[in-house]
């Protein structure tokens, strides 16, 4: 596939008077993992939240620029954000399963999007849980509360939940930073699996993680992208001094 799956052009984000993102343009290639790294407060999460218009929910946030997916600029007033968000899934830093059963967490989205058939839903639930490597652990207690799962399991459930509505892109905001090392490893493994089917954008402050899971890496600093390249290049031979300083830990 030649076309870019997701393209951001000249994105600016303002919170009230403050400019948090100062003109960022990035292409995200299909079936690749792109990592956004940078010191905290550099705007990487803010940028990520612009990609599925999640900043709409913040009262004084204003996003300008173009975001193209499927030949459509989604950062326009008339765009149906509900349809758009079906195409772009999201996973948060802290696992946030719904206060419902494991089964319901997965079935909730597809059912809303028109799949009422119980058999079909059962299949989707099983399929998504298998993809998230959670099926064996949960198949006997699908109707128990999702809140009874461990943090790592909850996070994988959230990933399973997001793929249940068949998105094209999955945005992940530091998906492993609240997890223990074992769970982190599982989530990272899952990300590598998922990139066969999805375009993944992941924000992380853990540079080893970025190096392990991503194909491309963008280094954010002060609301701008300093450098964007293949991950090997960024981590072995960065072009910018600031990038080098950051990845080698000589930085705030």
């Amino acid at each position, binding site marked *: 596939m030649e076309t870019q799956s997701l393209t951001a052009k000249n994105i600016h984000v303002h919170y009230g008077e403050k400019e948090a993102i100062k003109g960022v343009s990035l292409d995200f290639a299909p079936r690749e993992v792109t990592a956004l790294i940078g010191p905290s407060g550099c705007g990487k999460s803010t940028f990520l939240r612009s990609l599925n218009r999640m900043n709409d929910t913040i009262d004084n946030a204003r996003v300008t620029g173009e975001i193209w997916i499927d030949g459509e600029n989604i950062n326009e007033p008339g765009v149906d954000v509900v349809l758009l968000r079906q195409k772009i899934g999201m996973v948060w830093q802290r696992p946030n399963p719904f206060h419902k059963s494991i089964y319901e967490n997965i079935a909730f989205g597809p059912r809303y999007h028109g*799949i009422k058939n119980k058999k079909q839903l059962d299949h989707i639930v099983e*399929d998504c849980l298998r993809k998230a490597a959670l099926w064996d652990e949960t198949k006997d207690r699908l109707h128990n509360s999702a809140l009874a799962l461990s943090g790592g399991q909850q996070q994988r459930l959230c990933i399973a939940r997001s793929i249940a509505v068949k998105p094209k892109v999955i945005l992940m905001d530091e998906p492993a930073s609240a997890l223990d090392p074992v769970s982190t490893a599982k989530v990272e493994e899952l990300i590598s699996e998922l990139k066969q089917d999805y375009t993944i954008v992941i924000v992380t402050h853990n540079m080893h993680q970025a190096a392990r899971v991503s194909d491309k890496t963008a280094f954010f600093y002060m609301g701008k992208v300093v450098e964007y390249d293949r991950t090997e290049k960024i981590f072995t031979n960065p072009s910018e001094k600031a990038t080098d300083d950051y990845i080698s830990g000589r930085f705030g």
Partner: protein
Amino acid sequence: MERPAVKDNHMEQQGNRARKVVKPHVVEEWVGKVYTAICILVLVVTIGAIVYFVSSRGLTTFIKDGVSLSGLLGGLKWDPEADIPLYGALPFIFGSFSTSLLAALIAAPLGVCAAVFMTQIMPGIGKRILQPVIELLAGIPSVVFGFVGLSVIVPALRSIFPGQGIGIAAGAIVLSLMILPTITTIATDALAGLSAGLKEGSYALGATRWQTIYRIVIPTTLPALLTGVVLGMSRAFGEALAVQMVIGNSPHIPHSLFESASTLTSVITLDMGNTVMGSAHNNALWSLALILLAMTFVFVFVVRFLERRKNR
């Protein structure tokens, strides 16, 4: 893989259908917005209607019955059924102000002490005992306060002071119990919100707890404490039945706190049912209701003013 294919297919069908008809989720959003907006509209229309209807009735006294505003507000004699009817509402206005002011004077120190106890001295016991007590007190219906006032407070006052026991003092005591929860709750919130650093600074200078409380804690939270007192007064001013039951209901300014008196609410409560709608007497009662309404606005704006000072 077959299963996702089925699903894809379904999604596509949905997509096709969606292009032709209005998408269900758009309808749903619209329903939600319209429904909640109607609810808000009901609220706004209701308050508009209250202000409009009470004002239009209350102003009739001045427009149709030829009573002057100063005559109503300043007149000392209320005798609407006399040959030459008199509509002096000053005794009621005096009654309402004196009972609610006195009630606030009694309840404010008690409420602030309780708040200090709950936040500065023993938060544990405060949370476990005093707070539920305050919440229960807030839940007691006003007629029950009136009943207790009539069967305990009035006889007690009668045995200690000259007179019948009924009057402004009895009303103020009953009201003070009723507004104590309001004052305490707001004072507690204000004191609990105080930064610890402020107090520690004072302790570090060698001040005792009491010095810290009255030099630092109380002055810093004063606007918030006053907010509570004003809200309490507002509630006392509008309270009808509990006061009516213990105040005696004579339409004149009493010479002592232990002599029968009236308030705006008590005279409305007693007379509204006994007058014919549209009569001058009835209209005059609506004018009293209008005064109550106007005072509500005054109290709300004073509270807003204090809150703005608090936030600064």
